[in-house]
């Protein structure tokens, strides 16, 4: 029997606001334990939450970028459970009435494009972190670091529209790129600022009803999400083919073993006793605000890929790579515009130096300059690579390095003629053999000229001049 998987993804994106969702503490990583805390986010008696307006703005912009409908009224609820990293013993989260609903994202996977529905986008606060005994020298008991408490999270829930692990991966990458484009999230899965849980079930192909689903957790990279989905789909098909039934449960992905492991069953599910948080009034979003925020939405990854490939005539694959970062695509376009250079060559350079470009280690005009210098023959391909590496290392303008290091090449035929004449005069035997038909000797002459010019001659021009003189 042929099976089909049904996958829905829940993404928790940490919003890149300066402060936390319900208090003014910094929301940044990397502070000393419990440094970014105050009475509010540590749940002291008597404190009250106050909603951060920027957080709502970020979520509305995300909603607009994913074609969601922003709800005029949404409500924060309390999700009650006891845990030492949750100081109030409840998490404030939107439950019944989320901020936005009914959106979609278009993806490309296995050569076809698909529209994936988004059920809802809602806001909530993060919990703290526990450090257990032995985690560092002197840690004799479990310790709580509450820096992450109340850091803003946005949960984006997809419809069960995904059918393959590849589609899951494509959806996640596209969603991540959108959030990064909007500058609402840094999109870092390894560091946990972009987290994903998956609901997976399988059913015989053609059947309408969903099978029993398992929830997968603990996947901390795009690759791991795909691998976990692949494994879980295979596992569930195996269970059914062996005559068993899939049970509803939560499973953890063990990346080292490459398997999913049962964490808790349906009957162990918590009763979170959700109820509207009486400390926060319902959130009202007026249409004018949404409209104003709509004007701040930049060109999104999908649109950019289409435009770059059609406008510059570059392969879609290149356009995808360039569009993976707004900054990279901007530098590509600026470099082409700078002197009207070859888009394909420029794209190759941008892709080759992507890492340095997106991390801001490469002065932005570098690509335009090296592409131009190569097209005019001022530098060689080898010199180009050396120059970019040096520009990354020193941060100096690439043309300054070129001139300081003397990495230009001589492409002026007139300037090379004297040297070529000298070489021909100095190697009569080889000249004779060449003229007798030993064409392979041309590279010998080129080598001699390069040696004489200490590598600065443009080999293409040298060849041309040599050929003209030798004939």
């Amino acid at each position, binding site marked *: 029997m042929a099976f089909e998987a049904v996958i829905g993804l829940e993404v928790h994106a940490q919003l890149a606001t300066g402060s936390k969702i319900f208090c003014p503490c910094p929301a940044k990583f990397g502070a000393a334990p419990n440094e970014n805390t105050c009475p509010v986010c540590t749940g002291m008696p*008597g404190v009250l939450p106050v909603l951060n307006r920027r957080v709502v703005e970020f979520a509305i912009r995300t909603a607009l970028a994913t074609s969601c409908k922003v709800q005029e009224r949404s409500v924060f609820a309390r999700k*009650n459970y*006891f845990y030492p990293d949750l100081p109030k013993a409840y998490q404030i989260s939107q439950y019944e009435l989320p901020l936005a609903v009914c959106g979609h994202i278009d993806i490309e996977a296995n050569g076809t494009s698909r529209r994936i529905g988004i059920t809802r986008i809602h806001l909530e606060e993060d919990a703290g972190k526990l450090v257990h005994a032995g985690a560092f020298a002197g840690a004799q008991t479990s310790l709580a670091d509450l820096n992450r408490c109340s850091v803003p999270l946005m949960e984006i829930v997809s419809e069960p529209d995904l059918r393959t692990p590849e589609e899951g991966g494509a959806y996640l990458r596209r969603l991540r790129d959108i959030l990064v484009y909007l500058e609402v999230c840094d999109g870092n899965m390894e560091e946990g600022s972009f987290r994903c849980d998956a609901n997976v079930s399988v059913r015989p192909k053609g059947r309408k009803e969903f099978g029993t689903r398992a929830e997968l957790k603990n996947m901390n990279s795009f690759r791991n999400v795909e691998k976990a989905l692949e494994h879980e789909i295979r596992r569930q098909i195996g269970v059914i083919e062996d005559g068993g039934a899939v049970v509803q449960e939560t499973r953890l992905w063990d990346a080292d073993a490459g398997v999913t492991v049962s964490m808790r069953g349906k009957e162990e599910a918590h009763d979170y006793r959700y109820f509207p948080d009486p400390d926060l009034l319902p959130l009202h979003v007026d249409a004018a605000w949404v409209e104003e925020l709509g004007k701040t939405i930049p060109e999104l990854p999908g649109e950019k890929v289409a435009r770059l490939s059609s406008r510059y005539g570059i392969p879609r694959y290149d356009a995808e790579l360039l569009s993976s970062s707004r900054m990279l695509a901007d530098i590509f376009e600026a470099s082409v515009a700078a002197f009207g250079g070859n888009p394909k060559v420029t794209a190759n350079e941008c892709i080759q130096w992507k890492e340095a470009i997106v991390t801001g280690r490469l002065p932005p005009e570098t690509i335009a300059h090296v592409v131009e210098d190569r097209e005019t023959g001022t530098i060689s391909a080898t010199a180009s690579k050396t120059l970019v590496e040096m520009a990354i290392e020193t941060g100096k303008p690439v043309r300054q390095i070129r001139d300081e290091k003397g990495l230009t090449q001589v492409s002026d035929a007139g300037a090379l003629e004297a040297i070529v004449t000298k070489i021909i005069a100095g190697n009569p035997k080889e000249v004779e053999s060449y003229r007798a038909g030993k064409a392979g000797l041309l590279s010998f002459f080129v080598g001699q000229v390069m040696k004489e010019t200490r590598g600065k001659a443009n080999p293409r021009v040298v060849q041309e001049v040599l050929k003209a003189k030798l004939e």
Partner: protein
Amino acid sequence: MAGIPVHAWTLIEAARAIRDKEISSRELTRALLSRIERIDPKIHGYITVLPETAMREAAVCDEELAGGHTRGPLHGVPVALKDIFCTKGVRTTCASRILDNFDPPYDATVTKKIREAGAVLLGKHNMDEFAMGSSTETSRLGPTRNPWATDRIPGGSSGGTAAAVAAGTCFAGVGTDTGGSIRQPASLCGVVGMKPTYGRVSRYGMIAFASSLDQGGPIARSVPDAAVVLAVIAGHDRRDSTSVDIPVPDFLAATERDVKGMRVGLPREYFAGGLDASVRESVERALKALLSRGAQAVEISLPHTEFALSTYYIIAPAEASSNLARYDGVRYGFRADGGTGLIEMMSRTRGEGFGAEVKRRIMIGTYVLSAGYYEAYYGKAQKVRTLLRRDFTEAFSGVDVILTPTAPTPAFRIGEKVDDPLTMYLSDIYTIPCNLAGIPGISVPCGMSPDGLPIGAQLLGKHFDEEALFAAAAAIEREIPLPRLAPLEE
């Protein structure tokens, strides 16, 4: 004010005497501290007394005054707070073992405003544990006694505040009212207590019992005193999303306002069975007082009144079960010894840290929010709450204020109802609807029982119309002169 002992002055008199340099803040504070020392052991209105810091604060006030500066309307006047308001560096317990030795790292907005107005903080008042009770008997530190009859309860949960004000061990105090916790003890102790409109006074730093019902407010020995204190603590606070951004009117001026033409609603549901005869007579006297000054009586109906108590006992415990979940022994307060592992530590801490009434309400609240029961209890209670609110909106289309008894009986004896929670809950039957509707209410003394126990009348008003309540209460106060200080032997 020759001949009147300083502790018997009203707050307004005390503030004026300091401003006019008839007495220094230090002298006044010393006098009150010494009265606390002599009187409070009989009453137990205080959990914490702050002699050193109070004297230091008084000295600062005197210095400022010598330099020609006054901080505000309470400059140099000794007052105290219910032990539910966070006071930076001063133990704040909510009368619970679980907050034993909890020193808040911050001041509540009410605390901050009281300080900014120049008040000297004498200490923190006793209360029912986490404000859950109507008699101050659930305090982990033992009950407060009614200064009018020390074998009786002072009411609750702000019983310590009402008793201290009536005993002259502070000029005024700030209490909290979730279902009557300011008005009922004010009534039982013969003083004035006002629960403002929900959103009028910031809840920031006021330890939460039931967030959608809790509201801080003044307890004082006169209506003008209460007006002065409310003016100090009221106002929008960015730290409380439920506080409302509207101007604070001149409450003191409102106490001078004429009540001629004021329409006074008398809800028939509040004068039905279960009402003590002396309470009925006293409230009728209050009505006559208003009528004699030109007000008119209008009979009204608040048809959903009978559902108020059960609605309250779903919503308040539900919110409390969540609000009190943070007391788990992990970060502050009491932690039980001897547990192995997390769950046991938390269960033991909560088992030993909370008293019986608090546990009862946590269990009720946890139950009504559980999956499968939520709609039947919490969902339905919210709907009834809307109906109750509508009752008042409709009633206020025809009247300016509503007059009712504050409590069904005068103060009962200590221990009398402590083992019968349902009877105890009934002592708040007249005060609870006001919290559910979010409207303001005041209790003003209007009579004495044959046993010499004080009786209060309750006035309810429209949202943010505390002024009408101050006007009507001041009129009753002027027409029915009653002693405000309990007759205590020093």
